[in-house]
């Protein structure tokens, strides 16, 4: 059996309580339930996690390389969006 008829899933693992889920990789599975089990077997066999999310890869809406000029360049010349752009008044100097 090949993986042709299986779905691709992205796997996110929370390493410890208090941390965010982090993308760790992807895998093939027939449904979400099975993806969760395979994620357990493939990505947490050395005690890497306490919680797993799986998401169908095709459900992820991703930005495209082609969009990067229109997405990110316009913010290059707007330094006032960074906190470091502002001089703190004396009064709040110890903030």
């Amino acid at each position, binding site marked *: *059996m*090949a*993986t042709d008829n*299986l779905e691709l899933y992205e796997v996110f693992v929370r390493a410890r309580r208090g941390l965010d889920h982090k993308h760790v990789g992807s*895998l*093939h*599975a*027939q449904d979400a*339930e*099975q993806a969760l*089990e*395979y994620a*357990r*077997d*493939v990505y947490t*066999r050395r005690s890497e996690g306490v919680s797993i999310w799986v998401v169908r890869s095709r459900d992820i809406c991703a930005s495209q390389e082609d969009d990067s000029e229109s997405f990110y360049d316009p913010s290059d010349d707007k330094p006032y969006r960074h906190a470091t752009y502002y001089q703190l008044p004396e009064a709040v100097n110890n903030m």
Partner: protein
Amino acid sequence: MSDFDLKTATQEYATRLGDDSVVLGHRLSEWTSNAPFLEEDIALSNVALDYIGRARMYYSYAAELAGNGKTEDDLAYTRDMREFRNLLIHELPRGDFAYTMVRQLFVDVFNTYYLPELAKSSDSTLAGIAQKGIKETRYHLRRSHEWALRLGDGTEESHKRMQRAIESLWGYTHELFDADPLEVQLADAGVGVHNAALRPAWLEQVSEILTEASLTVPKDDWAVRGGRIGYHTENLGHMLNDMQFLHRAYPGCQW
């Protein structure tokens, strides 16, 4: 039973349970690099490792009780086929994927009822091993249950293969609920488990899962036995050839 007898019997029992685990673990490990796809390959190998880990615990305990300087490796790798006491269902060749999964289902449901009983053993080592096995089994059963549904209720071909596997394995499930005098005595002494008492619950859960998967529960019209007295199918010898070759060729080798 005197203390000495109980100790010898417990040692024999631990060896038997080790045999069950190492033989099934080896059969599962034969899927490594041969499974239908990568993810399932890793999953099956994980289950194999659970069983081999369990075998190590049982064997180490048996070796400790024997107190004759032999180790878990001696038990696993230097005994001949006739000395193995595993139940026959564990030694049958892995067959196709359906066959492997049906066997897992039967064994997983058995362990679902057997291990909690063993966890109550007055022997704290056996109870501890069982306790660890309970958690593993919960996951194993989750997998074999889902595969039974997926394949039983899948395509015409997968259904056919599942039913065929069920028919050819059913006669080997009866032995799971047998007990020879040694096992009965151990159960009476609070160390072992009365296996026969587990069958109704096993049958009920297996029937439920098979029915849910549109599969048919076979009739109890044949049964094969002999593992606990060392009478094996022709398959075990070939398997042990593979499994023991390295240790026999290079005794004590490490990596």
